[in-house]
């Protein structure tokens, strides 16, 4: 049984239950299309957040969370519509083509001024992927400084890199994970900073001869990265999504999804002072 049919089954039972009770559902009148939840993901969407770039399968951490949230809000799996956006489309002023946008968006106070975030659905430590010369580096801040660094320019890895590791050579920045991967394979950078699940995936599957050197302890980053669903500023749906996420966190369902889709993060050493 796939998770989708499983979710659909439970969703149907749930929907039947609420319909029978005749209760008022939180999301009513607040979504883009009445009775549907439009969720945006990246183009392409990356493993392990969405498997095989097919969010409608419900496979992958973010896809599964989206379906779980929809179910919790009282929507059937069929009522979840997927669209694709870039980061820029997500933050541009004006009408949006999504209710919520899930692309590992870190919640920061600066971003919160411009858009709304749901309650966090994942806390991600940052991790260091190394290749080539970087493989010989020790997992200490001192030895990391000497490496040639790269990162995705649109992520919070950039301020973390410049404020915490302070590499002696200016880091190179790229548009997305694929370009960082290409630069690592071309030997242009020794090390790159990603959130831990992405780092584990890239190292295991995408970048030949690479390794995850270690994760950055949460207390070293002033603001451990928490992923939230991005919404238009002042979206009334936020309260519904937050309530659903809270319920999923309390029931342990969120943790179960995390356990299913995200590789266990234990055993990745911390980076020392």
């Amino acid at each position, binding site marked *: 049984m796939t998770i989708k049919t499983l979710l659909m089954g439970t969703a149907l039972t749930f929907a039947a239950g609420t319909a029978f009770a005749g209760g008022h559902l939180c999301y009513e009148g607040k979504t883009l299309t009445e009775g549907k939840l439009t969720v945006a993901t990246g183009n392409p969407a990356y493993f392990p957040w969405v498997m095989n770039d097919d969010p409608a399968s419900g496979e992958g951490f973010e896809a599964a969370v989206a379906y779980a949230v929809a179910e919790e809000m009282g929507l059937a799996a069929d009522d979840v519509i997927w669209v694709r956006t870039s980061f820029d489309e997500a*933050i541009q002023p004006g009408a949006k083509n999504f209710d919520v946008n899930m692309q590992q968006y870190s919640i920061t106070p600066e971003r919160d001024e411009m858009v709304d975030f749901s309650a966090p659905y994942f806390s991600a430590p940052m991790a260091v992927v190394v290749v080539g010369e970087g493989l010989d580096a020790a997992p200490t801040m001192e030895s990391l400084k000497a490496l040639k660094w790269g990162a995705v320019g649109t992520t919070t890895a950039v301020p973390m890199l410049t404020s915490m590791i302070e590499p002696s050579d200016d880091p190179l920045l790229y548009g997305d994970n694929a370009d960082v991967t290409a630069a690592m394979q071309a030997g242009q950078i020794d090390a790159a900073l990603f959130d831990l699940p992405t780092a584990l995936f890239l190292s295991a599957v995408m970048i030949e001869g690479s390794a995850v050197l270690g994760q950055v302890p949460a207390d070293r980053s002033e603001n451990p990265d928490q992923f939230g669903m991005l919404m238009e500023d002042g979206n009334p749906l936020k309260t519904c999504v937050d309530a659903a996420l809270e319920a999923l966190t309390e029931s342990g369902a969120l943790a179960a999804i995390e356990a299913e889709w995200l590789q266990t993060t234990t055993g990745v050493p911390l980076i020392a002072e």
Partner: protein
Amino acid sequence: MSQIDNVGVGGKPRSRRQAYEDKLRRKSLLIAVMSSAAVVLAMVVLVPMAPGWDRVVKSFFNWSVMTRTFPGLLEAFVQNIMIFAWSAPLIAVLGLVIALMRDARSPVLFPLRIFGAAYTDIFRGLPVILTVYLIGFGIPGLGLSRPYNSPYLWGTVALVLTYSAYVAEIFRGGIDSVHSSQRSAAQSLGLSDRDVMRYVVLPQAIRKVVPAQMNMLIALQKDVALLSFIGPVEIFRQAGVYKSLSANFTPYVGAAIIFLAVTIPATRYADYLMQKQARERS
């Protein structure tokens, strides 16, 4: 007042016709001022009445974001200038060489003509960004070691290849525009083919294409930003980083201002050169 009005250039009394033309001129000036004022007024008054205006101001013209990010953008712009500064001379030299190849007239040099034609066809036909990607990631991927795999190096190569193809075509146009009678005349004076090109054709050809090449310089100056796709943190990437961190597009507006501060004077200068040339020709 009326006395001055009645005196034209050189102290001669103005004719009725001159007075009439002046009146027309004043009238059209007045209309131009009024219509410009109306357009500006409409923009200032009507655009902010759009329902999303507040949101747009907050996203694109956010003063606090601007003041916070502008110095960083200026600093990143130094990279653009550097890449531009070392690319431009290389492009000029390679462009001229390719143009000369295409102009090779000796049958022995026919392969050079073919090469020149293929070169310009390929690199003018490819989007710059594609060339930057393929060369910037592809060639270092062959296993070059540092520093020979630097994205600055191969990004520059990509820019030089693309732009020299355009520049070569402009040079070729200049060379073709020198009338063949000039070559014949020079040859009849006993100059070798090489000297004909060097002392007769090229000096005229290059002078003719200077304004067109100025436009290529302006385009190059903007396209340097494409190198950001393969790693270098120039102004476009830096603006993108600020944009992501603040979820605000104001840093892009800041970058646009910096670009314009450089390109508008350069464009005006190119226009001036073109007008000057047009005057000299007529």
